[in-house]
């Protein structure tokens, strides 16, 4: 019963972060803020959802498999976000603050 409630709380929180990530992906102004929003869905939302799912198993083989998936995702998805952001920097994309500075310089 307690496990059930806990699992529901985790799942709802996970769903909430998924939705905020998705909204952020559409509404945020530039690439880097969008990567930030997308990486929220990748990291915290999957973490919460998988913990919520583990609480629903009988802590046998399925829980272990879910744990493996969790560890794998925690390793790979931040790396993927990092690679995205870094390759954008490499390609010469500026953050919003930097673009603003550039414009100010031109104005002066």
């Amino acid at each position, binding site marked *: 019963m307690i496990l059930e409630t806990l699992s529901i709380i985790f799942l709802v929180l996970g769903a909430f972060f998924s939705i905020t990530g998705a909204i952020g992906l559409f509404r945020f102004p530039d690439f880097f803020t969008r990567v930030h929003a997308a990486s929220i869905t990748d990291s915290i939302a999957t973490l919460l959802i998988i913990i919520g799912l583990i609480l629903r198993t009988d802590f046998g083989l399925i829980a272990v498999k879910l744990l493996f998936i969790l560890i*794998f995702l925690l*390793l*790979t998805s931040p*790396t993927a976000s*990092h*690679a995205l952001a*870094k390759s954008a920097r490499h390609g010469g994309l500026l953050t919003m603050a930097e673009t603003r500075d550039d414009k100010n310089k031109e104005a002066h």
Partner: protein
Amino acid sequence: MAVFIDLMLLGMLAITALRVIFLKDLFAVVMLFGIYSFLSALIFVNLDAVDVAFTEAAVGAGISTVLMLGTLALTGRKEKTNNHKSWLPLLVVVATGAALIYGTLDMPPFGDPNNPAQQHVAPRYIQDSPQEVGLPNMVTSVLASYRGFDTLGETAVVFAAAIGVFSLLGLPKRDRAAIESGLKSHLVLRVVAKLIIPLILLFALYVQFHGDYGPGGGFQAGVIAAAAIILYALVFGLPLATHVLQPSLLKVLAALGVLIYAGTGVVSLFLGGNFLDYNVLASDPIAGQHLGIIIIELGVGITVFAAMLAIFYAFAGQAERKNIP
């Protein structure tokens, strides 16, 4: 609930497909194709067809996205504008579509358990495969034993695709001088890649040999193992990857897998059975079936691994050659 999820996924599938038609940026189209494959995989999961979903996720969303990106690196990312008149193709498509829809009117109702498709051989497989083959995963029994000849054909198709790419593009040469290339500055990527590549290979072996008991098998395992080496090539550079796994070795491996598969069939012929009849491989028919299925799945895995990796090598080698001069 399942119907609701199905409708949602099918709707998203239709939206993705429409977007693919109207987008001119091929890079985004490739990404949308990946999403399309993932959505189909989800639909297959919802239909309880986990083996197919696994294959779709690994092959459709994983490796073919990488291969299409490799193609884009050679061809450029903008679609060519065409100046053809569009009404004639439209007319042809509408007429064909109308004929197809008219044809489906005579078909039995969708998803009805009494359909000929469900009544033809499926009940026999479901009833007799626990006694005849004895594998917990019935999909593998059908794929590798009852329909072993079809799967041999599929493996040969993968092999033929690799041969086609070899003869068109050629494989990259081993180049000792260029080993020190790759994404040198990307420390995070290098560390994480080193960390997870062994895990990916381990998972590929698990999928390969666990296919008898759960979802998995040679096709998925081969693709996953190829993905691990592709990741290695992307992070540490193609020259180093070709140094570790030589292109000439891949040629041999691709042929070896098909040889193992067809050879199993020939061996069973010599032992007095039909082609690919595994019953005669051991004294006990069921043990023979298990042995035969493991061997031919291994053959499938080797061929798929070598073919996918060789196709990637060929594309990446061309792209590097184009960039260097």
